[in-house]
């Protein structure tokens, strides 16, 4: 087992190296560069730009810059952002909490909607509810997040005016301005009101998808012989569904959720831009615009590590959870 884990770990490391080479190369292939932001300013002469490029180390050829980057990264130093001059690690850690908060919230929303809906649809197949849910699931899967986001903004911020049109917090929010009785609710609402729309939008796609998976997984399990046996023994239907069927139906869903983790990062790029959410996604978009290679590489690597780690742990845990799955020796 230890040997398998070690081998799996080495493969992950190799993937990481390949990812970093590919990402770095792709960024170099993209036209423009970090110096483009100075080109539109008539006061900054060509000589000025040459001087700045040299000070940023951009005058060296790409492969040399990659080796420098790799050496520093292995030592745990992701370098400095070209745009802000701050350490890339700080730029990322400053924004990571916001993104994790958003991801966690949308994950929770997705699970708490998708699972019950999936179960109910499966146990009431072809009922009116099932058909309505099927309709909305496909709508949810096909609707682009940016469009749904703008729609939400229009309805809840502009039209109804109940939710703020973006951001993460109210700059002048002061809990002490509220009576002690309502203070906890005020604080809670202050946090929730900014999170509701982006979390729903970010979770939309997965909610729709997961409810479909849950439904079919459940249907498959229900038709198994042991369920029939349980029913024949006279086990109450509730117990059959939640005790015998659900646990087995959940196993593939949990795997899918693990594999969908990267989609939260990808979705965050769009959602955070629409709702002015100060997370990694927005940092990514800004850095693409600035061709801030340092920050982009930092985000790519950290995301890749998280995803690979997720898959790695999922694989290991899978063998622990399901005795039928074994690494062949």
């Amino acid at each position, binding site marked *: 087992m230890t040997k398998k884990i070690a081998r799996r770990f080495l493969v992950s490391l190799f993937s990481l190296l390949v990812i970093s080479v590919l990402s770095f190369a792709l960024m170099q292939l993209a*036209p*423009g*560069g970090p*110096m*483009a*932001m*100075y*080109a*539109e*300013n*008539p*006061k*900054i002469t*060509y000589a*000025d730009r040459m001087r700045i490029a040299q*000070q940023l180390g951009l005058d060296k050829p790409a492969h040399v810059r990659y080796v420098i980057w790799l050496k520093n990264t292995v030592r745990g130093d992701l370098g400095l952002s070209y*745009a*802000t*001059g*701050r*350490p890339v690690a700080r730029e990322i850690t*400053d*924004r990571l909490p916001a993104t994790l*908060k958003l991801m*966690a*919230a949308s994950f*929770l929303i997705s699970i708490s909607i998708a699972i019950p809906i999936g179960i109910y649809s499966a146990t009431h197949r072809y009922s009116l509810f099932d058909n309505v849910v099927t309709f909305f699931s496909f709508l949810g899967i096909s609707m682009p997040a940016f469009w749904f986001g*703008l729609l939400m903004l*229009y309805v809840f*911020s*502009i039209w109804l*005016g109940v939710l*703020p*049109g973006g*951001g*993460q*917090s109210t*700059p*002048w929010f002061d809990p002490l*301005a509220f009576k002690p009785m*309502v203070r*906890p*609710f*005020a*604080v*809670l*609402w202050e946090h*929730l*009101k900014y999170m509701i729309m982006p979390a729903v939008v970010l979770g939309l796609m997965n909610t729709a998808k997961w409810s479909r998976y849950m439904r079919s997984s459940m249907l498959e399990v229900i038709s198994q012989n042991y369920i029939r046996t349980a029913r024949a023994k006279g086990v109450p239907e509730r117990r059959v569904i939640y005790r015998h069927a659900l646990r087995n139906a959940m196993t593939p869903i949990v795997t899918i959720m*693990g594999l969908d983790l990267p989609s939260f990062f990808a979705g965050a790029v769009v959602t955070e*831009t*629409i709702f*002015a959410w*100060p997370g990694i996604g*927005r940092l990514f978009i800004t850095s693409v*615009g600035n*061709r801030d290679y340092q920050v982009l590489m930092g985000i790519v690597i950290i995301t890749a590590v*998280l995803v690979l*780690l997720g898959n790695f*742990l999922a694989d290991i845990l899978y063998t622990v959870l399901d005795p039928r799955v074994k690494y062949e020796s």
Partner: protein
Amino acid sequence: MVILLALVLVAALNVSCGKKPATQPVEQPKPQRPLVWGGPDIETLNPILSESSYETDIMNAIFSTLIKVNEKLEYVPDLLEELPKVSDDGLTYTFRLRKGVKFHDGVELTTKDVKYTYDIHMDPNVTVPSRTLWEKIDSWNIVDDYNFSFTLKEYVAEYLEGWAYSSAIIVPKHIVEAEYKASGNTLTKGGEFSRRPIGSGPYKIVEWKPTEYIMLERFDDYFKGKPQIEKIVFKFIPTDDVKLAQFSAGEIDIMEVPAPQYKEILSKKQGGMPIEVVNYPAFIYVHADFNLRNPIFQDKEVRQALAYAWPQDQFIETVLDGVGQPATGFLPTISWAYNPNVKRYNYDLKKAEELLESAGWKLGPDGVRTKNGLRLEFTMNASAGNRVREAWQQIAQQEWAKIGVKAHIQNYEPATLFGDILDGLKFDMIIFGWVSGFDPSPRTLWHSSQIPDPTNPETSGQNYPGFVNARVDELIELAEKEMDREKRKQYFFEIQEILAEEVPSIYIYFFAKVYAYPSALKNFKPNPTQANNTWNIWEWELQ
């Protein structure tokens, strides 16, 4: 899996207060609400390293300059007792600082801070975006804590202008020097002075939440008196749609309105509060540059024909909602050197066709004109997503097709457009904007010494079309040496006439900046120069 569990836990902690919130949003008490400005994100507040105009808006509140340019384009003293005295030869400028000007930490601002500001900008270790202003100075004479003068290497017309902008903000020596030494004799945008700067301006920084907002609080000891508005927040908003949503919802009070949304804003009331929409002329103009190295653009008649063959007035009326001025050259009508009598290209398809015919461009069987085997077909480039410029391209494309010219549209995001297409001179025609200065000299744009060559790093300048005209070179040089404004005006008039005749670029329109703000805000006077919108922020009042 573990990550998933961790995420769920984090979420659970976040919502650990358990119960669902009260269904009604809890109303916040109104009076404490600061004035909120919505704009794009920024990178630094260190004036030595900054090069973006949005940073200028915030730095104007935190720092002071020696002089300012007011909304009528006049110089007014800021840190000075009076405007500087200039010697007869125009080389020596003598200044007298106000006494008792305090930085936010209580230290007095004196001549040593002014001199240090110069020194740090000239320091080779510091990534200063532009040294144009500072390089002109030959020698300094510091008399005492309040009196100083400097002498220029040679006469520079309108030299004072640069001293009114954020690039000439006076920085506190005691703070910046300490950071410079601590970070190994340099300054970076990541330094403390970039993030929590100390200045002598009307507002001091309270909080900077990255990608969220910056909160400023008034500085009670400001040398022009305590400002009336207590707190001002600059909120960072990534897209125009969100900006509009937040404005409509009353979450931001002031914003620059993108031209196509002008009428939409006019029809809106912000959270029930009455708003004003103002429209200021600006020095920014949008133009379509010809690449004169392309053989099809060699004939002046082709360039003139294209200039005739698009409806300028209709474009401004429909695409810009009437916000903006027709451009006849590189100067706006508010400039003292603006020449109102240059050749104008009013929409005239017939004239355009005649010009092309006379130059020998004959209609081919597929409706595209040719001459000596060359087809009148080319590509226009602009920033993708800029709705106004895209609309212009489409109009021009359709109109030019009517006179036998085939134009393709290929747009790129800004980093590619400016970093690759423009810099590499890979365009036939490129559409973008320039900010023209307070001083009208178009040296970097139209002098033949300013033609960049991507293969030769020794070259510099922004004469991207590659325009060469001996008379224009001569006039630019004459105007730069002349001290008499009337004579300079004559030189600039002639330059504008030549450019209008030669059409090295089609002038599309002059920007008007449109702002929406609450009616209760008084003394909000955006400035057409690089002094920007907040140049007089200490005078702002909320009634």
